[in-house]
């Protein structure tokens, strides 16, 4: 049966998917290309969390009651730096080329991330830190903390994009790079900042997922697909739509998995996407004629 437990689980999963999808849609808006490595960055964030948590437990004497929350800023920061490196490799050399080139370069980066994880951590799944210890907040504490962390970060992102001059510059660069450059906005720097932000969000998703869903080098494709689907359902390029799409996917997946099986949940999700694209080739809420990936 579908109880509150299931809904909280769906909420936690949805929170992580939403973060990954947000990063995904930010990059789509900034460079017009799909970031095929987005899922691999979720996975990478998971490993950063695993490493940071083990360092934390080795170097602190008292048992930390909320290791996940403690390392959260660290994961964001580390992943933002990695995001900058990512844009320097996969975007800067290709910015005068069609978006398809960036699309493929992100596939290449995805392969490198996956294989690096495999080489350094091995193929066996590893568990990341719990957000808050069960003793502190009960059995659902971890998932509720996932939801809360995601809510805070999404709200902060919203404030950043809509309430600050930096955010306005970022959005202007995404909407019309030439016009933004003409009024003196450093567009390239804004795009780099977008990558840093997007990858930090993916990394955070990785941290949130790493405890309950474990981390494996091969996780990337699935997470990337979830973000891709969330953005397709929510409307290509729409930030709020991406969050809504991610939540819808998580609820659908959790409910079907609870009632029937995980395999059926995934299969049905893909079939559903195909059905949506069949009926509405422009996407569920799609209207925006953006640059293409």
């Amino acid at each position, binding site marked *: 049966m579908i109880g509150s437990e299931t809904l909280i689980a769906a909420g936690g999963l949805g929170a992580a998917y939403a973060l990954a999808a947000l990063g995904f849609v930010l990059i*789509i808006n900034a460079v017009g290309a*799909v970031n095929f490595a987005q899922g691999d960055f979720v996975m990478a964030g998971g490993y950063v969390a695993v490493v940071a948590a083990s360092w934390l437990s080795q170097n602190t004497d008292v048992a930390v009651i909320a290791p996940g929350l403690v390392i959260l800023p660290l994961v964001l920061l580390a992943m933002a730096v990695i995001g900058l490196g990512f844009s320097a*490799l*996969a975007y800067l*050399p*290709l910015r005068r*080329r069609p978006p*398809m*080139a960036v*699309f*493929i*370069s992100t*596939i*290449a*980066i*995805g*392969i*490198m*991330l996956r*294989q*690096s994880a*495999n*080489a350094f951590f091995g193929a066996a799944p590893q568990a990341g830190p719990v957000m808050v210890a069960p003793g502190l907040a009960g059995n659902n504490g971890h998932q509720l903390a996932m939801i809360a962390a995601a809510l805070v970060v999404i709200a902060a992102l919203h404030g950043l994009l809509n309430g600050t001059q930096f955010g306005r510059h970022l959005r202007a660069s995404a909407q019309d790079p030439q016009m933004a450059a003409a009024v003196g906005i450093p567009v390239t720097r804004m795009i780099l900042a977008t990558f840093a932000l997007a990858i930090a969000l993916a990394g955070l998703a990785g941290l949130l997922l790493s405890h309950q869903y474990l981390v494996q080098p091969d996780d990337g*494709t699935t997470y990337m*697909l979830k973000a*891709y*689907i969330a953005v*397709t359902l929510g409307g*290509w390029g729409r930030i709020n739509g991406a969050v809504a799409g991610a939540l819808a996917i998580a609820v659908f997946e959790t409910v079907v998995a609870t009632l029937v099986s995980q*395999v059926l949940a*995934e*299969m049905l999700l*893909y*079939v559903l*996407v*195909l059905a949506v*694209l*069949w009926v509405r*080739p*422009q*996407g569920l809420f799609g209207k925006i004629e953006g640059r*293409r*990936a």
Partner: protein
Amino acid sequence: MTRQTLIGGGVVSALAVLFMANAGGYEMRLMSLAGIYTIAVLGYQMALGHAGVLSLAQGAFFGVGAYVTGILTTQHNLDGAAAMLAAMLVAAVLAALVAIPVLRLKTHYFALATLAIAEVVHLLAVNWTTVTGGANGIYGVPPLVLFSIEIASGWPLLVTVWSAVALAAGLVFWRTSGRRGLRLDLARETPLAADVVGINRRRQRFELFVLSAILAAVAGSFQAHAIGVVSPAVTDFALMVTILVATLVGGQQRILGAVIGGILVIHLPEWFRAFDVFYLIAYGAALLLVIIVAPKGIAGFWPRRHLQETHAAQPPPALCCRQASLHCANLRKHFGGVKAVDGITARFTTGQITGVIGPNGSGKSTLLNLLTGLIRADGGTITLDHKEVTSLSADTRARAGLARAFQHPDLVREHRVWEAVMAAIPLSKDSVQAAKDAAAACAHVDLQGQAATLVEHLSPEGLRRLEIARALATVPDILLLDEPAAGLTAAEQDRLAVTVRRLADDGLAIIVVEHGMRFLLPLADTIICLDQGQVIATGPAAEIAENPEVIDCYLGRFEEAAKEAGK
């Protein structure tokens, strides 16, 4: 056959013989696998390189081929050849079914849809245990049997696989080279231009997508025999990535590229074996490097082959236009609240040049787009030769005799002039007739001496003339020109006017949208002036120039501006 091809073929055969004489079983096995991947890559080139669709289902079709072969040979005692045919058929049917809803999608949705299909195939392979054997897969797939001869591994398999590579290469060459290739370039690089010369892009994409799936299935089928096992790994996304990497590294369009990609992708892991797991990281790095430094892949370092000019026409033969008329009645198109075209009625006939003028935003471009079918009307009718074409697609109208040149030349940069013109000629014409039409089209716009010039080396005037030549190559009855004089010098405009007049005298119905009155007023027989989506005046040029309403909304401003500029 050029000498180059002969020498190349000779070298390759010599190497092959040398290889066969010296290689051990292990090398033969690797080269067999390389051939198998070459077949899959040849298929993928058709989808990605030639049709320009980023399919992520090529690996799934490979897997389908492997599973169909594995299941039929082990559970139903079918022989290998029959199983391979069945695999091709299943992949073709699957691809055709998928293509109908998916091929019309935009790139990013197309990639997602094909990826979703691939994931469904993979989930089925892993979980439909009774048929696929689940995670364990299918064991004991027997060797391939062709004409009741068993193809053992080692050199018999090697020769068979590479013969199949040759066949597949022949198929790819047949479907993507020569004039067909030029039309594929046009559809992929400049879709709108492809529409207005009458290329049916949907059919092109459909055909190439299905063929790509068939070749993937052949490769999958061979691999099932070669390895003897079919496991869910053949439907894994990693295999798709391998094919993608091989295609991009080798080259997206050249047959040589497929061979290079196929061989490299199989041998690199062996050569880098010493690096252990780290070689796979290098593999991703290699892909990144290739995209940055060699967008056309390794085969891109060889120069592109061009179609040679085979006919020259001097002086140009008269156009063979039919008596034709284009008529629109009460034509309407709204964009949100903007009435771009609001009830336009007009008639365009043989031998006449009709100028369409009006201020910016008056609906001139929308009218052209409606007439050519690039956008659909909200209301009203368009009649071509007494046949209604309002709901027909742009390419269908183009085949019915409607041609158009764009304001901003929409040409494939890597084509030569001759190729750009040849691309517009329907494949139903034999090569002799096609060459004649192309030569005539070039001669009509005085480009005959420049057939071998690359499009990217043409002057602005040359580009404009080439746009018109391409339109003429479709042997149209009606020609629409969108601001043909914009950006040209006075002398160039005068030369262009002579050309356009000559075409009308030959019997073309010509519609010219233009802002340059110096160019248009002496040239046009009739002028239609638009304002806010409506016709405000129609008549001979001299009459329109004096029309107070036209002066008020358009010409007046123009003259005042000229005076201002003169001060």
